[in-house]
């Protein structure tokens, strides 16, 4: 009984991890950049979402606007920074990324942007019904998260496998130079990749904002490292790996807390899982050599 309920809660938690990590792993796949500022995109998405929602009062419009804005924001980050650093050593874009994350978080805390206070995101379940059975239940909010995640993942899957764009990413992730040599417009392709990945992060921000009914400037702190654990765990650049890792992590966190309690803060459990994993499978669950 309690086990099933915990599993269903873990599934929802995993959904919020998946959207965040999916975008990050896509970016890593093509650029091989550890994009910490991805967590700022997530915060910006949530912020735009809550603003739009308070403006128009419709969750779906808010979600769409937030995804568009965070997509554009992601592309801007790429064009203004990573674009110039593509051929420098790996640590350079990493440091730039950390710097941007800190800068954006501080900026967002300014009173003329998000300010110090948390904002409520009272979208509820956006009109979706709650599901209640004898064994487990999903609240309307949880149904919403599940549905949005499944739809977005389906779209990403289709883009990756059925479009030229998706193929160009796959080519670029194998060998950037070769890909551009065979006529792929690398810049456009990378920008599109950033757009989609960032839009997913924005969606994650909106969903988490609705789920916890709160949006605030420092909400990206936790995802900034947790999303990393997930993509390393899943195998860098592997989308199915990120999904699998999100599920495992969410289930481990939920069950450890539910059965033994907080032996450790739940977020350090993620690191523990990561360390154990790296000892036995250094390339991650679905990573390739």
């Amino acid at each position, binding site marked *: 009984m309690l086990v099933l309920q*915990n599993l269903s809660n873990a599934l929802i938690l995993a959904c919020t991890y998946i959207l965040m990590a999916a975008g990050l792993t896509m970016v890593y796949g093509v650029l091989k950049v550890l994009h910490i500022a991805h967590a700022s995109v997530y915060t910006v998405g949530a912020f735009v979402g809550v603003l739009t929602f308070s403006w128009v009062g419709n969750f779906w419009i808010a979600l769409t606007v937030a995804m568009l804005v965070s997509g554009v924001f992601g592309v801007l980050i790429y064009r203004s920074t990573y674009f110039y650093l593509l051929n420098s050593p790996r640590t350079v874009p990493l440091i730039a990324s950390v710097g941007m994350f800190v800068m954006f978080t*501080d900026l967002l805390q*300014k*009173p003329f942007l998000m300010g*110090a*206070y*948390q904002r*409520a995101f009272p979208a509820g379940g956006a009109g979706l019904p709650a599901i209640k059975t004898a064994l487990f239940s999903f609240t309307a909010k949880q149904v919403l998260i599940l549905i949005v995640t499944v739809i977005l993942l389906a779209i990403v899957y289709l883009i990756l496998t059925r479009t030229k764009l998706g193929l160009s990413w796959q080519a670029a992730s194998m060998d950037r130079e070769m890909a551009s040599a065979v006529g792929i417009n690398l810049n456009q392709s990378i920008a599109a990749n950033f757009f989609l990945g960032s839009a997913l992060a924005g969606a994650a921000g909106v969903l988490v904002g609705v789920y*916890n009914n709160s949006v605030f400037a420092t909400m990206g702190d936790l995802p900034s490292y947790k999303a990393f654990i997930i993509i390393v765990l899943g195998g860098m650049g592997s989308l199915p790996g990120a999904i699998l890792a999100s599920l495992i992590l969410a289930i481990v966190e939920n069950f450890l807390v539910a059965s033994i309690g907080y032996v450790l*803060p739940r977020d350090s459990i993620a690191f523990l899982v990561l360390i154990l994993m790296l000892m036995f499978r250094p390339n991650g669950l679905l990573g390739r050599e």
Partner: protein
Amino acid sequence: MKSKLSFLLIALVILSLVLAGCAPQATPTAPAEQPAQTEAPQVTEAAAETEAPQPTEAPMETEAPAEEPAAPSGEPIKIGFFSPTTGFAAADGTSALQSAQLAVKIINERGGVLGRPLELVYYDDAAKPDQASAIARKLIEQDKVVAAISGSYSGATRAAAPIFQEAGIPMLSAYAIHPEITKTGNMIFRIGTLATTQGRVGAELVGKVMNLKKVAILTIDNDFGISLTDGFKQHAAEIGLEIVLEEKYPLGETEFRPIIGKIKASGAEVVYATGYYNEAANLVSQARDEGLEIPIIGQEGYDSPKFIELAGPAAEGVIITTDLNRDSERPMTRLFLEQYEATYGEKADMVGASAFDAVMVLAYAINTAGSTDPQAIVKAISELKNFEDVASGPFWYYTPEREVVRPISSQIVRDGAFHLYHEFTDEALVKP
């Protein structure tokens, strides 16, 4: 490529310098023009109404001038103030700062202190102990303040306290309620109610006022939560409460569902949960989502309009113990609540009330002492009796350990606002 890279790095450095430069002082909003309709000056009579244990002498008042207070003149009296207006605690720190500024404004409108204007010297400590101790040194050596107020959390306040103690400068902790702070020495006073005392009142509320027996305790894993829980458990044992579950969670937790399942299974009749308003809002709304309908008892960490806003309908019926009674008719409480909302466009909270009171107590002490001599200020605070000029309820007196003794109220959320639920005036219970 090289030149572009270096250009970019330089641009980043410049940008970060600009940001850092304007960071600390950016937050305080300029107080809006406010017609000086101070209805405060009749505070003296109000003191008589409280059933304080020693109603021996009427409070020595801050000579409230009847009409047209003389404008303060001369060299300003500087008091230090630090609070986190950036970082995770920025909401509380901003509220504390704004309230302290409001108090200074009111005092100066009423003629200042010793006829001189009061001046707040403010720094942002980001709730970090290392920053707080650096600020303490700066306030003492560079700004030469006569006294200081910590508008920060326990960690930062504990770091600053020994520095003020050593320098012989009085420091008042506004709402940091860890026991160690006042144990630093004779210069350090507390405005808020000691955590263990408030925990004790929480147990009394559950066992005596609500007549419930089986409690699940959920503690935020820091100084604040642990000291509250200690007080609760100690009194729970005395009055025979049964603790069926006890859990700790880390600061900033947002996912309480696994714990809520455990509480449901434990057979508890009531939850005593420590935490700040954001954790509390998540806890309460998730509990109601998951069908956990038993009462949830909180404490002053919940005491913010933000809690009700974030938790929404789930906040209804939540009961907390706190220092601020929003239904109080006491003139200073009304003045604070109304002026805060008028000046800053948002509702005041407990943290703000405590910072406001800290300034009021300090101004009273300097006035009573008749000088800015640290020892005289300390003496005036320790001898304070039935002090009414505060937002968060009368200060009956200070114990020799520099803890305040006064009634503690509990508030219930009804129709989206905090309302008085019960007031604890039993001296044996509320005395630390």
